[in-house]
């Protein structure tokens, strides 16, 4: 039962979805403040190389994830400066982050006589819950079989949801993203909040990259995200800027990919390239279908001021 393809595939989808989930959650909070950061791919790469380096140095998972997150913060600060203070086109600033992140991480990972790319980290990421629970049919592997970081991601999802809709700070964040002028007049610091949550987004992406290198791949590879950051950006939109839906979207995206491979093994007479398209086509269709219904579209709409720099005295 617990080694049925279905159960195992769900577990795999969760593993594969977790790095993207971290990045997507971070980006959701960033975009909720009205800042769009397309540099997720770059921040994940930077977080990945830093986290892996820390992992190699300390062998401690949490130190490594923290290091990855902080690297993401530092990197996202560049975007914050450009997008918020200098009011640079946010799409451009984001793309520039991707390019710089790619070059910087590859450089760091391949220099020296003991480059990271050839090192292996002693970091252990094992299930934490007792065998008894893990053994339970179906729910065992799916719910109880994961490493602590997966549970952390679930906590963060719940936390982010609570934060957004049940706390004063969350209210402020939503207000800033919806109507910065009103938030400003209400005494909130629009710039401050936008900076803060741009950095938070960087942290999420950094942790995602570090987890990808340390836990999912177990090694560092240059350009190892290979587009995962872009998928995170897409899933934010797909999830309608909602943490719970982001969790769902990340796992489903992973599952759809696995589905493509499962179909290949089953020997369906469809070229593998077309099976590889499945997750992207499905994402495309879902977004279109959602937006096709104005009522639904409004409910999962983007924060009203997304991508618009705010300046108090402009009119």
């Amino acid at each position, binding site marked *: 039962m617990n080694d049925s393809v279905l159960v195992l595939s769900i577990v795999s989808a969760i593993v594969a979805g977790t790095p993207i989930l971290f990045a997507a959650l971070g980006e959701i909070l960033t975009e909720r403040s009205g800042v769009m950061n397309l540099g997720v791919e770059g921040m994940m790469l930077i977080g990945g190389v830093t986290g892996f380096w820390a992992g190699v140095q300390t062998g401690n998972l949490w130190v490594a994830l923290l290091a990855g997150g902080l690297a993401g913060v530092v990197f996202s600060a560049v975007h914050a400066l450009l997008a918020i203070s200098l009011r640079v086109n946010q799409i451009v600033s984001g793309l520039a982050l991707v390019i710089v992140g790619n070059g910087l991480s590859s450089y760091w990972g391949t220099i020296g006589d003991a480059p990271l790319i050839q090192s292996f980290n002693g970091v252990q990421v094992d299930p934490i819950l007792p065998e008894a629970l893990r053994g339970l049919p179906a729910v065992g592997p799916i719910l109880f079989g994961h490493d602590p970081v997966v549970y952390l991601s679930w906590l963060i999802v719940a936390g982010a949801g609570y934060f957004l*809709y049940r706390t004063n700070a969350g209210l402020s964040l939503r207000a800033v993203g919806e109507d910065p002028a009103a938030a400003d007049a209400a005494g909130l610091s629009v710039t401050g909040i936008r900076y803060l949550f741009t950095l938070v987004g960087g942290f999420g992406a950094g942790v995602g990259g570090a987890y990808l290198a340390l836990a999912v791949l177990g090694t560092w590879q240059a350009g190892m995200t290979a587009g995962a950051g872009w998928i995170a950006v897409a899933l934010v939109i797909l999830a309608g800027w909602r943490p719970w839906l982001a969790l769902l979207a990340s796992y489903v995206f992973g599952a759809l990919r696995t589905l493509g491979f499962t179909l290949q093994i089953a020997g369906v007479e469809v070229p593998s390239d077309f099976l590889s398209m499945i997750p992207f086509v499905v994402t495309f269709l879902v977004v279109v279908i959602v937006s096709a219904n104005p009522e639904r579209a409004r409910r999962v709409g983007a924060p009203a001021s997304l991508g618009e720099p705010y300046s*108090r005295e402009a009119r």
Partner: protein
Amino acid sequence: MAAVGETILEVRDLNKSFYGVAANEQVNFDLRAGEVHGLLGENGAGKSTLCSVLAGLYRPDSGEISLDGQRVSLRSPHEAAEHGIGMVYQHFRLVPSLTVAENLVLGLKGQGVRLTLRAVETRVAEIAEEYGLSVHPSAYIWQLSVGEQQRVEILKQLYRGARILILDEPTAVLAPQECEKLFEVVRHMADQDHSVVLVSHKMEEILGHTDRVTVLRGGRNAGTVPTEDATASQLATMMIGAEHMPEAGQHEPRRIDDAEPVLTVTDLHVTGDRGTPAVNGASLEVCRGQIVGIAGVAGNGQREFQEALAGLRPATSGSVRLGDRDITAASPRRRSQVGLAYVPEDRLGTGLASGLTIEENLVLKSYREPPHSRFGVLSSSAIAATARTLVERFDVRGARRQMAVSLMSGGNLQRAILARELTRSHDVLLAASPTRGLDVAATAAVRGHIRAETDDGRGVLLFSEDLAEITELSDLILVMSRGRIVGSYTPETLDVEELGLLMTGAKDHGAHQDGGRAA
């Protein structure tokens, strides 16, 4: 807490300029505890700028502000609020997608982590009770009428314990009864030792409801006088520096039984932005040479009605006829081609494209027609020529050839729109709040243009929340409420009292409101 009559706020030599345009120059201003202080001035005189500086929104270039004798620097609305200064802006600053209660607690310090609205709602109820400001705490802002939104803004300031309340042109959007209620609230606050700064263009409001009045002209002080010593003509002089203001001559309502209708609307239904019905079965007729005015409180479907007539919003049912043409389904361009001119409420953003130059904006509707373009190729010389003539004929000022129109002033923006709309051949003029926020001179000019329309046998459909404007111009006055035409008067049969009641007939018009933050 300062004793009544004591000066609590003092402004010295305030300077603030935008794009090198001085909005406030060496402005001095002082406010006493428990007084209602009027702030009077033409458009762009600098009233809002002064207020925004006091509210911590704008940083002055130089000058001193002191509270209770202490020099203070108000670097943000938050700091101003901490000093007990609260402002209700000309354009409301509420988040439409949040509820009243959420907007009230937004940005308040010391709220703890959890968002607890119940406490807020009870406290709100109390204040609302005390000042007679009834609103539903859990309603979404976008559901509220403009009047209700204004009450939320005032509540918000009181809730934050503001002792100095700044109201920037609060009555511009209110029906007479609402205005009266507002002034009761204001007076009540003054009695509670709060101080109120009341910005307005309207002489009678200033004379009727303030203790002292400060007049600004061209960003400079024109003087401060106790209201009881002041007369209308004196204030007007201080405002525009001329002895007498231009006469807004009342005109003869025409008899129009014989005239044939140019615009016929039958049982029109229109849906609002939020999918809720905004116009439910409105019917009316505009005849040649007739001005039909539609009075109503903002948010009763006027905007959707205008947009439906202009073709910007589909009608769910009913019909619109221009002359004998059915234009119910026609595109905006088609309507303008067959003779509908439209002066929208939102000048910058709808009436004009803010980033384009004045020239480009003046041909916004005729750029496809020769001589402005042939076979899709624009002729800049022809466009420049047209622009030059229009700018002269309609006396549009402050326009520079390659400058974005967003830098132009309110009145001049309106002149530009009229210039473009009125010079296209048309049978019907659809005008929405054409003089909102304009000063006396600009207002007179605009009204002159509107009247001139009827002389050439055109029909005019005029929407306005300014009752005076409606009564002054219209041959037929309709009242719109809850998306319906609920009353009809000729200037003779007009009963302002009753009309006001009709306008404000029901208070829960909210459902038809979309954010309601007028341009």
